[in-house]
């Protein structure tokens, strides 16, 4: 008797799961249809390959088979406006050093990966946006009140990622006596910060906020909130891309209908971080 009851229970569970699955599939189809009807050319075929970071919590993060973060949210919104449903997006990992090459070799169609617009980069790739203006800031221990800006780092230990712009700027412009620890990733830097061997971690404020917002770090670290640079995050596109104006239009729409703010709160809000409101939300720049 017991075995039969178990079998019935299992069947019920299986049926429920199946139902839930098909429900999910319907939803995905709906969004794809909606995207298609909204674009003038009647929806897009094939897939859109979007380059994101896989290892930046709050911005672009691979969580099992899911992708989460602010960059991902903006990418999804833009893709939908271009006529690609959620199931037509192929997420590709785009590490910093490979972004230009991936666009030039057409390995990706667009990149949303904390990609600052710079003149040198504009020589080889195109940019739409900016969709966010970040600023370089510091992450310190939650109980550390001695550091309120880059000038306070004289003689202290600072961690950043190898090959990044940020740490060198502090050494060059603010505190020459800073001890610099370079690590392969920000996760290692936060480990060193929590262990107390470094006093601060530096990079763009929104990246720090993403790190501070992950449950393991909550309450242990905080973003100082005194940004001292301007990083315009753009959408990386192949040079002379035809969709640049469409991407810009989508970003503008996202900011106007409130989804932009929603995505920001959802992904990095938990750290208490508020982006620089003089510069955000940004106004997109016309494509060159």
């Amino acid at each position, binding site marked *: 008797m017991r075995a039969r009851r178990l079998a019935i229970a299992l069947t019920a569970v299986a049926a429920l799961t199946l139902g839930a699955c098909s429900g999910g599939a319907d939803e995905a189809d709906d969004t794809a249809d909606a995207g298609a009807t909204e674009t003038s050319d009647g929806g897009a075929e094939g897939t859109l390959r979007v380059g994101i970071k896989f290892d930046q919590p709050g911005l672009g993060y691979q969580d099992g088979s899911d992708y989460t973060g602010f960059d991902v949210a903006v990418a999804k919104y833009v893709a939908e406006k271009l006529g690609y449903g959620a199931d037509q997006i192929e997420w590709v990992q785009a590490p*910093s*050093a490979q*972004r*230009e*090459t991936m666009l030039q070799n057409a390995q990706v169609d667009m990149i949303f990966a904390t990609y600052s617009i710079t003149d*040198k*980069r504009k*020589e*080889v*790739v195109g940019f739409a946006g900016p969709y966010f203006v970040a600023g370089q800031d510091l992450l310190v221990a939650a109980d550390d009140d001695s550091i309120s800006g880059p000038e306070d780092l004289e003689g202290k*230990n600072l961690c950043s990622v*190898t*090959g*990044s*712009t940020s740490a*060198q700027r502090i050494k060059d412009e603010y505190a020459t006596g800073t*001890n*610099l*620890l*370079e*690590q*392969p990733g920000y996760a*290692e830097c936060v*480990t*060193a910060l929590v*262990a107390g*061997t470094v006093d601060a971690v530096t990079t763009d404020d929104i990246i720090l906020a993403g790190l501070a917002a992950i449950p393991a770090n909550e309450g242990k670290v905080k973003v100082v909130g005194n940004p001292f640079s301007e990083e315009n995050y753009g959408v990386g596109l192949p040079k002379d891309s035809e969709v640049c104006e469409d991407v810009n239009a989508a970003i503008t729409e996202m900011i106007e209908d409130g989804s932009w703010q929603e995505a920001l709160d959802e992904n990095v809000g938990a750290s208490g971080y508020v982006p620089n409101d003089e510069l955000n939300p940004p106004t997109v720049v016309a494509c060159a």
Partner: protein
Amino acid sequence: MDEGYLEKFLSLFDEYDVLAAFWVNIQLSLYAAVIALVIGTVLAVMRISPVPSLRWAGATYVTLLRNTPLTIIIVFCVLGLWGQLGLTLSSDFQTNFFRLAVLGLAVYHAAFVCEALRSGVNTVPVGQAEAARAIGLGFWSAARLVILPQAFRGAVAPLGNVLIALIKNSTVAAAGSVAETSGLMRTMIEFRPDVIFAIFLTFAVGYVIIVVPVGLATTSLSRRLAVAR
């Protein structure tokens, strides 16, 4: 390739000190090679010794270190030894990381030096060891006077391969906050994506210039030193 590209490429060398970065890698390799040779020789002696516990300890070291990725060892040196355990090898902040990286490179490559030497020991005929025993030498004297000298001469080529691997692996020190070639390359790519292929080529050619002479030298040495049997 237009002239503008060449000019942009050359401006890289004004902006970044590529030679200094290579010099750091050469220094890392030299220090690590010497220490690895010492540790590796001790390990090799342990592994051929008649004492089972020494043989076991040597084998464990080699198996563990050889099968651990070097990046993990270097990151452990910084985040584990320095970060958690507070091990400092120098009062100067950056020198400390340099020495930790040398330590990481040395203990890793010691495992490979040990294996290279053991392959050298295998080239020594068993009769040599038996003869050494027959004239009344103990294990240590036999190893020092008869087996190891021949083993080193037989192991020059594999030792050269370990040295070449070490030179190239020294780039992993970037993971331990040492300002060397691979770290500089990442910085250059971050700021100068307009000449990205020239940057790759520069470092590739740089390593060829360093490594090829090592290969030629060890090959010719291994021929000249080989024990004629």
